[in-house]
């Protein structure tokens, strides 16, 4: 009888604890303005990139020499560029390129970094080789490596993705590895080894899920950095080649006409700032949400 009662108590208590945890988590989400604001703006940007062309009667490529460099007006909300193309339309199409490249680079480098980082912790020789390669690649300043790679590969969207993935993967691999190392040392993993669970089972079922929180946060920051890097490469003429629109190459064109057309510099610039800022806000918020200890520590101080 007594034991039964106790069992019930335990079930009740754990139920109550779970409920409390859920409400606490929800409350934490609700009070995490960075996360919410960041996520909202990013979603809006993505939606705008997808359905934006519906709002504009212009195409991204059709040139109208008579309409070149018109200031913002009712017809052309953000003005026109040096070929008479509608700047709003160009920025919308540029958003498609810039955001999708950023996202693809973030996903690719996270995936590669995850595999490298996790497997490195399991095989000693592999670890030495992979980490030396990562250290070497990290030692070469990022944009410079990307510029050199683009010089060799030639300017194209695909090559921008390749170059930036090479630049961002080593850092992610390092972060995943250090988290995985900590997880690996946990007693329950040791116990699983003792029970004869296979390496790949432990890696995929137990270690990988534990590395996902820091990975997700890092992926957000890589997303933002990839947008900046793509813009920088395109701005330098080593990224997305014309006539395809990207925020970077609109800026490149804008620099040439900076005396005549401020809108060519200001609007794509604002687009970059808003997307990077919201991604950074989102990433910071996500970190606080996934690892409340960090925030608690700061609060205590």
């Amino acid at each position, binding site marked *: 009888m007594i034991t039964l009662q106790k069992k019930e108590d335990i079930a009740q208590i754990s139920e109550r604890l779970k409920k409390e945890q859920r409400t606490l988590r929800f409350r934490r989400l609700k009070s995490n303005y960075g996360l919410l604001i960041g996520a909202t703006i990013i979603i809006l940007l993505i939606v705008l990139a997808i359905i934006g062309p519906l709002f504009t009667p212009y195409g991204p490529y059709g040139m109208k020499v008579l309409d070149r460099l018109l200031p913002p007006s009712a017809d052309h909300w953000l003005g026109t560029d040096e070929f008479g193309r509608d700047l709003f339309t160009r920025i919308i199409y540029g958003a498609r390129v810039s955001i999708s490249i950023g996202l693809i680079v973030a996903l690719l480098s996270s995936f590669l970094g995850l595999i490298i980082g996790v497997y490195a912790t399991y095989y000693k020789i592999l670890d030495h080789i992979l980490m*030396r390669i990562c250290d070497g690649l990290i030692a070469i300043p990022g944009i*410079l490596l990307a510029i050199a790679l683009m010089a060799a590969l030639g300017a194209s969207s695909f090559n921008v993705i390749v170059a930036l993935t090479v630049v961002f993967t080593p850092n992610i691999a390092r972060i995943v590895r250090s988290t995985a190392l900590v997880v690996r040392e946990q007693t329950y993993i040791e116990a699983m080894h003792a029970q004869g669970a296979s390496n790949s089972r432990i890696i995929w079922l137990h270690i990988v899920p534990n590395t996902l929180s820091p990975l997700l946060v890092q992926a957000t920051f890589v997303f933002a950095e990839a947008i900046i890097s793509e813009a920088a490469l395109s701005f330098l003429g080593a990224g997305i080649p014309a006539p395809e629109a990207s925020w970077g190459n609109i800026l490149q064109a804008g620099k040439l006409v900076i*005396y005549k057309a401020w809108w060519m510099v200001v609007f794509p610039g604002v687009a970059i*700032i808003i997307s*990077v800022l919201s991604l950074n806000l989102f990433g910071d918020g996500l970190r606080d949400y996934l690892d409340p200890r960090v925030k608690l520590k700061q609060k205590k*101080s």
Partner: protein
Amino acid sequence: MLAYITKRLLSLIPVLFVVTIAIFLIIHITPGAPAAVILGIEASEAEIEALNEELGLNRPIYEQYFNWVGNLLKGDLGQSISMHQPVGQAIAEHIGPTLSLAILAQIIALILAIPFGIIAAYKRGTAVDYSLMGVSLLGMAIPSFLLGLLLMLVVGVKLQWLPVAGYESLSNGLWAHLQYLILPGISLGTIQAALITRMTRSSMLEVLNLNYIKTARSRGLSETRVLLKHAFRNAFLPILTVIGQTFGVLVTGAVVVESIFNIPGLGQLILNSIARRDFAVIQGVVLIVTVIYVGLNLIIDLLYGFVDPRVRLDRK
């Protein structure tokens, strides 16, 4: 300390090995034969063959690598095809403006960031803290080339306070030199300042929570003294690391910002070389900047010893 320095130097060998391989391979990942790519579509078979011979591109790849590294060790970075001069000489001619710009940006960043970071930490949770953190968040979201363009637009084109673009070397006078570097310096320094402000703040917050700060206060020391003498000296170590790690960002950032303001530095050199497919120069610039970056981090690691007696003595 000596053992520590030796150990630290030895650990650089694998890093530099990987760096040289990566940079060496750049010329070999081009689609098509390197010589054909360098010479362009109109090149004849004979010309390609001649270039292959000249650059040793028809030898086995490992032999090419060891040759290249051997030359590097002798200080020979190769020959620029487009400029008809040694790469080393081309880099020497262009490195000055880049370093000038990077150093100026670092100075601007430190002058802004350290006081801001200390104030934000001391006033944490207040409006002052929130606004400083908000501004720094914005500062981190504006890439330096973009800020450069915007500053150029506002200060150079609209207000006409400073020259829009160009460069004067230091030998023509300090102000002549600086007036061209102020806008690029601010564009480059801002993101750095934002980063260091945040780092200073969090590092200071951590230290301010420690027991010896309580001790210092219990001895009747003033808040200024507690903050500057007791907290900042301890909080400085992580800040120093960030400065080292991000100086690389500064130098590469300088490469990009230079192209906006037409400063004849390494950035212009590398961009011109891309257009001319002058791979020796591209490789040389990437290598030199990487070596500067790695060397700087080494120096900062060693500086640790001077700032923190625990490191100095434990590693004796």
